[in-house]
């Protein structure tokens, strides 16, 4: 199976869906002529032309709102946010218009739109460019949220997201763009709302999403090697819909849970998951649920400190050992 990067996997998903459905349009800042700020859309303009690959001005509320309006007429825009951090200037368009228009119209309208781009810290770009708004988006009924950790998942999930008839927020990670993974050449789809056990273990369940999965896998290896602790890593892949069953199945097996995410702790995705586990698997727990989140402050610039602020393998390892003590 060929090894391709996370970036290429997304590009392939876009190209396949552009070829499959003439209503799919890719738009965003620098996606066409510049080949993408992170080169995700490289070569797409050449292949699909300017009607399908559209450069927009720096005007997120304008072009996202426009995409939502076009989606009501059956266009299927896949809109790139150069950084998910920029969603805040389009907040009203995404979370009032796209999220609510179906409901407010009594189900007469749907918005088949995907908004995608990187949502991560860890690149020393300061607080304004390091948001991870999956919790905020998932807090809005009407919206679906996807956070893939690997190239394989990114491709299969993006293809499903583009075919989805509801608005899907697709959150990638600049640090993962260059990571290579095995991705089959033949077409495949990954359904939204299906978690993936990325590593099988018996002593502890780590639940994570996005790059926190990769950090958790690194921590799990070290825990096995140095501490003889067997860790199961559940990758949520999708935040909403949420695969509760896969989480619960793992909890019932290991009886100990560590929740890891790049989100800030207050009202983070893991707050919801912790609530769900205590409600549905209370008797299965041998220890209180523990969380590792970003240290609760705006994203710091200072490179070594930003690495500390995020849930890195060392912080995850330390929390796991405390939990198992």
């Amino acid at each position: 199976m060929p090894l391709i990067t996370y970036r290429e996997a997304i590009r392939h998903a876009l190209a396949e869906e552009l070829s499959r459905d003439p209503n799919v349009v890719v738009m965003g800042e620098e996606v066409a002529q510049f080949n993408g700020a992170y080169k995700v859309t490289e070569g797409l303009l050449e292949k699909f032309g300017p009607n399908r690959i559209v450069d927009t001005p720096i005007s997120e509320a304008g072009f996202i709102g426009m995409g939502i309006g076009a989606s009501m007429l059956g266009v299927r825009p896949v809109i790139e946010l150069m950084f998910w951090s920029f969603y805040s200037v389009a907040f009203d368009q995404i979370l009032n218009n796209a999220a609510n228009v179906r409901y407010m119209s009594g189900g007469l309208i749907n918005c088949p739109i995907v908004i995608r781009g990187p949502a991560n810290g860890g690149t020393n770009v300061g607080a304004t460019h390091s948001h991870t708004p999956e919790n905020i988006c998932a807090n809005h009924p009407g919206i679906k949220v996807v956070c893939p950790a690997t190239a394989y998942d990114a491709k299969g999930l993006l293809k499903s997201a583009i075919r989805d008839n509801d608005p899907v927020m697709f959150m990638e990670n600049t640090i993962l763009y260059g990571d290579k993974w095995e991705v089959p050449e033949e077409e495949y789809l990954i359904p939204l709302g299906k978690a993936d056990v990325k590593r099988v273990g018996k002593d502890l369940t780590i639940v994570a999403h996005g790059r926190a999965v990769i950090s958790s896998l690194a921590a799990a290896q070290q825990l096995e090697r140095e501490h003889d602790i067997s860790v199961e890593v559940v990758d949520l892949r999708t935040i909403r819909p949420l695969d509760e069953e896969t989480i619960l199945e793992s909890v019932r097996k290991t009886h100990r849970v560590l929740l890891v995410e790049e989100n800030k702790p207050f009202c983070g995705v893991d707050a919801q998951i912790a609530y769900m586990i205590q409600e549905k698997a209370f008797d299965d727990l041998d220890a209180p649920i523990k969380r590792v989140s970003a240290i609760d402050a705006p994203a710091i610039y200072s490179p070594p400190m930003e690495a500390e602020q995020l849930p890195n393998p060392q912080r995850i390892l330390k929390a796991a050992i405390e939990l198992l003590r």
Partner: protein
Amino acid sequence: MSKKQSAIADKSASTTDFSKAPINASLNREQKIDLYRTMVRVRRFEERSLRAYQAKKIGGFLHLYIGQEAVAIGCCSLMGKNDHVITAYRDHGHAIGVGMPMNPLMAEMYGKATGCSKGKGGSMHFFDPSRNYWGGHGIVGGQIPLGAGLAYGIKYKGLKGAAMAFMGDGAVNQGAVHEAYNLASLWNLPVIYVIENNGYSMGTSQQRSSAGSLAKRAEGYDMNWSECDGSNIYEVRETMNRLLTLAREQCKPSVVEIKTYRYRGHSVADPDNTYRSKTEIEEYRKTKDPISVFQKILHDEGVLTDALIESIDTEARAEADAAADFAEQSPYPTVEDISKDVYWEEDHPEHKTSQGRIFFE
């Protein structure tokens, strides 16, 4: 002749030109009566809804369109198969203008399951995609990028049509509106941004909220713009027909400012005693009321008779009363209904591909 009467006379004299504009001259008697009747129906519908609101049958906000009817009815009367409309929360006139019947509109305001949005949207959120009516939006200016998107969709699909995106004069200072202006001009989107200038953004007059003139801001975006008087439906139609043709035929966007007035407060909750005088309202009502103006024009044209005016009014009142009865007798949505119409996929289980939990406790 008193001064006020002469104002109407002057108006009708100047409107003779608009009545001769081909788009108006081509109207037959029935079509003219229909324009008049639709305006009357909007007004009677809203007067009836106000009574229902005062009787506490309607919750939340109620933004009445009374005084502005010629704008929505004039614009919507020009819609072809591929023309689309989107507006803000003062949306009753446009809904009736595109042909939505009164019953589901009134029922929507009563919060009933038979409402056009099944009781999930309320007064500010009327929709009817089957009539190319895309709402009904609550946030000032928030619908304007969607209007650009409708135009984008029309153009992308290679259709000859236009989107009319309505906003109030208060919306022109919102950033999203300017972003949508830029996109429309940059990409030649077939959209007409219609500013319904009723003089007040809530309780703040235009003078106290907007620098410069409103439609002229289009010049900064190298976009066509126009102004017109919204009290005369013929003038609205003549102006909009010109702009719609530009959009449909040449994909040229425009901004148009239609000067109008609302008699009622911003919403029914507005006591309307802090920012304008009763005299000002009375003056407009006497000289520029769009229904009175058109009634006089059609009377002079020999289209309307006193008996016909009377019967149109009686029928409109009866229709509004019947809508209120229909709303009253309709059931409320159920608790189960709260969780429907959130996701397309959940509403179409036969097409469901996602897994996992989508609603939470």
